[in-house]
């Protein structure tokens, strides 16, 4: 086992041990404030088996994951092309940028009330809010990525007489891809943040729903289960994106390494 991983595992074990000491053994933290390991475990069993807040854990996870993936994909499918367009065409930038300047300072979460008013408590409203929050980072980073492509590289492409479509797929997109992936990572984070917030405000299923009900029930074990579940889901989806990035940017990671 690599040294880094063993040290990381040791750290987690120590934290768990301190947690056990502080709650169960020494009773420094009352169980109404923060759950003990045993309480957390029983909450996990509770939500996995009988279910809690309208469904079992699998159902909540499925719903949250589904909405995040849909909102995220929707956001990048619109955001990346728009960023490419703005990066490529000064005129498109001039048209679109003012809209961005107005919309950007609005925190994505502030759209939740309007989304619920328009689309109700179902999936559509949440996808819309996730789309709003994840859209902005993908547009901005894609735009910056295009503008960061070395000028001589673009000139080399012009010199080689690239047809438009090929220019986009073989020069603009790969050239901007290091920053596009930065944008995607930020978009993914924003998607999770927004989803949980949107579910807290109102939802029938989902991790946010579990957190919300557990808060009303004064059920700290269940709150912790919800938090850890979101953390694991966020980590997992980021990891999938990271693998895609490593694959797509093999040339770039190696290039950065070569530069030292």
């Amino acid at each position: 086992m690599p040294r880094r991983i063993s040290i990381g595992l040791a750290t987690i074990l120590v934290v768990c041990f301190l947690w056990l000491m502080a709650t169960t053994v020494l009773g420094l933290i009352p169980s109404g404030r923060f759950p003990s390991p045993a309480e957390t475990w029983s909450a996990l069993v509770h939500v996995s088996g009988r279910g809690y807040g309208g469904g079992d854990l699998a159902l909540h996870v499925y719903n949250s994951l589904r909405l995040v993936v849909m909102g995220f994909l929707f956001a990048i499918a619109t955001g990346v092309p728009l960023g490419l367009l703005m990066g490529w065409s000064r005129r498109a930038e001039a048209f679109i940028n003012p809209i961005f300047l107005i919309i950007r300072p609005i925190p994505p979460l502030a759209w939740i009330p309007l989304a619920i008013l328009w689309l109700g408590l179902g999936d559509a409203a949440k996808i819309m809010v996730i789309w709003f929050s994840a859209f902005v980072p993908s547009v901005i980073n894609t735009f910056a990525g295009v503008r960061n492509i070395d000028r001589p590289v673009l000139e080399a492409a012009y010199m080689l007489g690239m047809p438009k479509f090929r220019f986009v797929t073989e020069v603009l997109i790969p050239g901007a891809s290091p920053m596009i992936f930065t944008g995607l990572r930020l978009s993914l984070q924003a998607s999770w943040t927004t989803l949980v917030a949107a579910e807290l405000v109102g939802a029938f299923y989902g991790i946010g729903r579990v957190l919300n009900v557990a808060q009303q029930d004064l059920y700290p074990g269940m709150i912790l289960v919800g938090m850890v579940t979101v953390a694991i889901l966020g980590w997992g989806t980021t990891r999938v994106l990271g693998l895609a990035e490593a694959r797509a940017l093999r040339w770039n990671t190696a290039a950065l390494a070569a530069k030292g």
Partner: protein
Amino acid sequence: MGVIQFKDVGKIFGPRDKGFVALKDIDLEIRDKEFMAIVGPSGCGKTTCLRMVAGFEDATDGVVSVDGTPIKRPGPDRAVVFQQFALFPWKSVYDNIDLGLRNLNVSSSERSKRIEAILNLMNLTQYAKHFPHQLSGGMQQRVAIARAYVLDPDVLLMDEPFGALDAQTRVVMQEELVRLARKNPRTVLFITHAVEEAVYLADRVAIMTRAPGQIKEVLDVASVRNAENWDSHEKIEDVMDLESFVHLRTHIWRSLREEKAAQHA
């Protein structure tokens, strides 16, 4: 064919009345299959001349044309080798060279034939699958030259192509370019500030004045080269030792020094 013509060409960066006058009254013809080097003090606009032929810049006054057709935009008939190589870092050596041929809709069997030939000629065969960053600067510039040559362009534009290379690599590349250019003559416009390089490589050398750049003088190197049989010497240092070479070099140095002195006066 590949005749490059500058006719009363001027270039002003910025507004016409108060912009920076980079070039003034450039009149120059580069003949078909001629290797023309332009030397000049830095900032004299020599690179701008090349960029106008490439189609990256418009002339403010006059006309730049190739075979009588005024230049509107960049294109594969005028292949460029850039100082900073400008390879596509996300494409392998092979794919970098292939891209221009694909754009010209060359058949795939013809493409692989031509790419293999140029890889072989440039000693790049074993690096075909490498990415640019895995190669040294000299190797990368070899790929860039191969990418330009494989298009079989009428005109080859080289903008200080060896400026970013170390001295030893530079000499090797110069010798190879001579070999390539003699074997496979093209119309070449070669920009450099290295006087030896210009005399060694070119058929004619145009000397520019300081900004606003004008053509001060055009020297015929080819007739001296042929009369003194420079090409019988394989190594660059042997050519550089010849009296006729030294004579031309000194002439250009003097001419450039005058410009430098006038700049500071």
